């Protein structure tokens, strides 16, 4: 009786171990896994006064004001590999009775221009500000150009200016990054 029980018991146990397997699975589809996070991130903002477009010392208009900031995350190697599309959104609120041209020039570390975009900002007034929204979708080959940039130069150009000009020009902006990891 002992033998009758022992060997089947052992046999089942050994078979369970030897028979242990992984089936109905496909580990090759690991390569097909794609993380596709969509990240919303503020970009730049500013508040320009009408006085910024007029030099009180020389009484001459300053038709273009310009500033630069590094955006070093953009040319990070991980971003270069993962970024598939970037949607820029700029919202200008114009209290100044002038139109503006806003230029965004993306530069590489060696100051080569990699990508540019530009928009016209509608004229407003101190009493009735006008909002101008501008969206720029960057995809395809342009993404590669964009991710070569590590800084952006923002230029704001006014057609004319004088000492009596009043109001502010406000910019808020953000970027939607479509990543594929």
């Amino acid at each position, binding site marked *: 009786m*002992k033998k009758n029980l022992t060997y089947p018991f052992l046999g089942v146990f050994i078979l369970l171990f030897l028979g242990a397997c992984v089936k109905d699975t496909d580990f090759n589809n690991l390569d097909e896994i794609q993380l596709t996070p969509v990240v919303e991130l503020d970009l730049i903002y500013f508040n320009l006064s009408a006085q910024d477009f007029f030099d009180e010392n020389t009484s001459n208009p300053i038709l273009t004001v310009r500033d630069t900031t*590094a955006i070093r995350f953009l040319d990070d190697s991980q971003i270069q590999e993962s970024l598939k599309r970037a949607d820029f959104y700029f919202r200008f609120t114009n209290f100044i009775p002038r139109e503006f041209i806003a230029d965004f020039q993306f530069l590489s570390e060696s100051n080569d221009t990699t990508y540019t975009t530009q928009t016209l900002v509608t004229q407003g007034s101190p009493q009735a500000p006008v909002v101008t929204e501008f969206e720029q979708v960057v995809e395809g080959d342009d993404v590669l150009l964009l991710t070569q940039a590590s800084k952006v130069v923002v230029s704001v150009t006014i057609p004319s200016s004088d000492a009596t000009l009043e109001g502010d020009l406000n910019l808020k902006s953000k970027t939607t990054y479509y990543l594929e990891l």
Partner: protein
Amino acid sequence: MQNLLTCLISLWVVTSIAQNKQILYGFEEVPQSLLLNPGSKVKQDIHFGIPFFSQIHLNIGSSGISAYDIFGKSDVDITTRIRNKIFELKNTDFFTVTQQLEIINFGWRNRKEVYFSGGIYQEFDFITYYPRDLAILAWEGNRDYLDYEFDLGEISATGDLMTVYHFGVNKQFGKKLTLGIRAKLYSSILSFRSTNNSGSFVTRLGDENSENIYEHTVQNANLTVETSGYASLRDSNGGGVASEILGRAFFGGNIGVGVDIGGTYDITRNLSVSASILDFGAIFHSNDVETYHATGTYTLDGIELLFPPLSAGEETFPYYDDLVDEIERELPIDTLTTSYSQLRPLKINAGLKYSFGKLLGNSGVCDCLNPGGSDDLSQAVGLQFYSIYRPKGPQMAGTFFYYRRIAEFLSAKATYTVDPYSNSNVGLGLATDIGRFNFYIAADNLLRYGNLAKAKSVSLQLGFNIKIDRQ
């Protein structure tokens, strides 16, 4: 080789309460059962384990997910399956790796019937809870989660690599009671812990008074990672790592002390209860300690341009560097080298056993010189309880078992275990005593061995010992 690799890959997604050795607990034919209850009954007079082969234990798992859930053949693409699981898993689900390798194990009974046992084993234990919010943030991004507060406090993980030196005594008092105690010295090789974190991250749409379109806010962050044994390895640049780790295994690192206690009481000739508390102790980390502590609240609005009037060749403000400095100032990560103590994960075992069947022993008759004590019978059934204290509270398991001495040289124990994550865990252990040579093997979740990919729990223990009876 590919199948082996497949098996290994699949093991990363199997669930169980790591370190629960429900089959070995109370399995008195196996000397290592003394490590689960220092007060269990000891049948042999002398034992010593085959060095490095007396106990090999491996448990790799995760709760709430199996390899099949992700890699199983399905019409649904793998990315969708992972996404579904990311949302399905809870922040109390966990991933564990536990491995033990016994280096030395020995024991002997002296003339006063005290059984001494001791040894050395190496242990690696890792657990991380599933940080659900951060997984969603990483998988989805924040676009569809405006105003949602991602909980940074879900980060909870510990990891320890150590050598344990232990020595215990076990003695039967009267006919009914057996008690045992084991002292432990922990020699920590590498340790890290990040628990009791708090804080949140939220992206809110700004209003007209906001600086920019969004407000990205880290609120009340309080995150800590304690490490010991890591800084010197990081700074060694790979040179002499092996000798450094070996040195720490022999008390060259951080030391801790602990104790196991346990007992067995025979209520009647057939019924007995047992219980044990393991790893009641702490490790005192004072050497090679680095603790990283991040605190604060900060709102990111983007980069504000000021358009300063510049002379030719003059550079504007370093906005980006200033922003980085501001973040580091508002959310500082301090590196501390102060000592800290770490409680060992306390484990509790308890069992109730009812023995029946044939009397064991050569004569096959009742031991009339042992009135009141339990008989050594060929079969038993019972219940066991197991609990281990983890960072987010105790994890518990209940086991029903059936024991049978099948032959003079062969014993078996079958278990059915229920824990919060599985109610179909069937395990089986076999112990053979061929001459003085003792071999045992125990594995659970046998129902899943037909396809390990569907298992949410697999653990395996096996080992070789020499057992000697003086009679």
